[in-house]
């Protein structure tokens, strides 16, 4: 009897399926552990956006292609971005380079960095540094006639639950015949801070903004159920219960019909 039972348990097909499921679970666990280690590495220390080979992390967007942009380490931690567009850019084309990062430990982050760029307002040539996360965007424009002067950017933000990350971009625009541009970046990093940011600093609480946008049931903006329809159909409140009870009854009747 017990031998029969044992034989049943050891059927090759079943054994294979059990082994496959166990292997699948192991794969899931390993995938999670490997992802966790990468994530912890990113959240435990400040993230230097210019360390290593920046070209491995920075991407182009808009009209620029990767071979039109050069990243050059010029010493003292300064990275120079040279753009040489094959087709001249114009001011309505939004192009630049960006670095996207996930910030998955809840709390406040500080982005700090310095940049300068060749700009000339009279010719419509400009550049700006942007920090964006979810629906929020913080930007600092490079100022003209300040050659050699670094623009400091220091901003605190708390990412939203539904979009825990940030994108740092350096955006360029130019006149109709403008083909080249230059920007310098240094000391660019994102740091997770303990507690709240200083009250006088630039700060954006995207977590709270999202909660305010969605979290108050009485606020009707962009809601799922428009209030005007609700008012018109207010008399139908109890119809739902009647409908559900009717459906349950139909299920019972149909069950008997199939007897």
């Amino acid at each position, binding site marked *: 009897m017990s031998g029969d039972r044992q034989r049943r348990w050891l059927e090759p097909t079943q054994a294979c399926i059990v082994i496959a499921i166990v292997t699948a679970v192991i794969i899931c666990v390993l995938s999670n552990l490997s992802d966790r280690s990468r994530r912890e590495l990113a959240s435990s220390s400040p993230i230097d956006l210019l360390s290593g080979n920046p070209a491995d992390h920075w991407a182009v967007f808009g009209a620029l292609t*990767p071979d039109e942009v050069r990243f050059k380490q010029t010493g003292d931690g300064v990275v120079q971005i040279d753009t040489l567009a094959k087709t001249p850019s114009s001011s309505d084309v939004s192009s630049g380079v960006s670095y996207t990062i996930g910030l998955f430990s809840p709390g406040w982050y500080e982005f700090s960095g310095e940049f300068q760029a060749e700009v000339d307002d009279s010719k419509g040539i400009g550049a700006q540094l942007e920090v964006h996360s979810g629906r929020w965007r913080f930007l600092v424009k490079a100022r003209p006639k300040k050659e050699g002067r670094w623009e400091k950017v220091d901003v605190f933000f708390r990412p939203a639950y539904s979009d825990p990350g940030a994108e740092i971009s350096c955006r360029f625009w130019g006149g109709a015949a403008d083909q080249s541009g230059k920007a310098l970046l240094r000391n660019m990093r994102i740091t997770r801070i303990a507690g709240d940011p200083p009250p006088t600093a630039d700060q954006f609480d995207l977590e709270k903004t999202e909660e305010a946008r*969605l979290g108050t049931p009485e606020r009707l903006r962009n809601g799922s159920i428009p209030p005007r329809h609700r008012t018109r159909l207010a008399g139908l409140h109890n119809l739902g219960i009647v409908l559900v009870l009717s459906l349950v009854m139909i299920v019972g009747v149909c069950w008997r019909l199939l007897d």
Partner: protein
Amino acid sequence: MISASIVIATALRFWRLGSPAEPVYDETKVLTQAQSYLHGWRPPYSSHPPAAKMLVALSVSLFGNYPWGWRAANALMGTALVPITYLLARRLFRSRLAASIAATLILCDGMFLVASRLAMINIVYITIGAGAYLVLWCFVQNPVFRTQRIQLVAMSLLLGLYVSTKAAISEVAVLLALGVVVVTLIGATPMRLSAMRTNLISRRVIGACGLIVSIVLLVYFGVLISYYWVVWHGFGDLVAYHHRVIHQNLELPPDFPNASPFWSWPLLLHPYPYWKRDLLNGTVQVIWCGGNPLLWWAVLPAIFIASVRGYAQKSMTWVFLAAGYFAYLVMWIPIQRYVFIYSYIPGLYFGLLALAGALEECWHGGARRWEHLALLTPILLCLVLGLGFVWGGLIACSILVVYAVLVRQSAAYEGKFVSSIFLAMTLLIFVYFLPMWIATPLSQTGYKARMWLNGPGLASWQ
């Protein structure tokens, strides 16, 4: 084979699941809705019912609010789809080989892989739908009428979840299931009871249809109410919600970036990247919303074969597959708003099942010569597009020569040759396109080489 498919599916779906470490495409919307549910906030408007978003919310609450956690539940659903497809194909064709081929085809298509690796809703409804079809075929092949009732209830629960996940597309599945159930009940009623037969058939058909529709509606209401409990004010809200969904969809324009007409989907004319990053080191990372071109193009002859076989053999399996495929395409004809290629997935699923059946027939010598040639044609097309006219043409000619030699000398092997070469090519093309589905860095040249269609108009792989 089912064991191997589980392991391979898990590995493909969970490998570097957390990458990209940011919301991709519609993940932002789904995550906002999932977070609303988790925090008890007002759910933002969505034209699709909330079951898949609740699943993502469950995933986030179990595994954490980071990309791996967002996507884990869908990856599990995508993994489950492979063994479910194996079991369904085994039921449909009563063949382990057809089942193994069907599981392989699902594993080798990028659209299913991409959908399984993102926190969006497509893989959820496809897997639930496949589960419902599996139970449906258990019902069809069950000779004991009393236990069929339980299968009807199980199928209805799954169909209810399907309807609670995706609007419009899911109703096709319910109609399809109702059709199969009615045909089965009429066919299964004993002829000798001729006097009472009509009465019995009517009773069973009404009972089965009533049971299915009622349970589907109950599940749908249950899911909807549990999601919208924060703002729920009774039945009026249910009407208002559906009123809004219909009106918003009617008001949407016919054109939108990356949208494509439904008739272009089977031809794989306009896939597009869900996410793309042109890194300054010269590499491209992309998540491509497109499938394995060989499989997509082979689905067309496979469905033609299914239609012919369904008509000639009066086979319910082939008719079911052809009808399911066409139903999921025809439903788009009256819809005027913009639509995207990923809406082809439910039809593609039927197409891949039909393809598995056709390849199995080839292997066992049950396919005719025109069927062999119909299945070889997409291989030749892929060779020419992938390798160019010279090399692709040479290899295509070689395949045709070998086939011709087999036809003349050893007819028993011609079908086996077609099946083998098709599956080998499917695997090769899958491996070739895999980096574009899982965001592995590719050189710019490698990326451009994979863009087989570069037209200025609709026929563009971008």
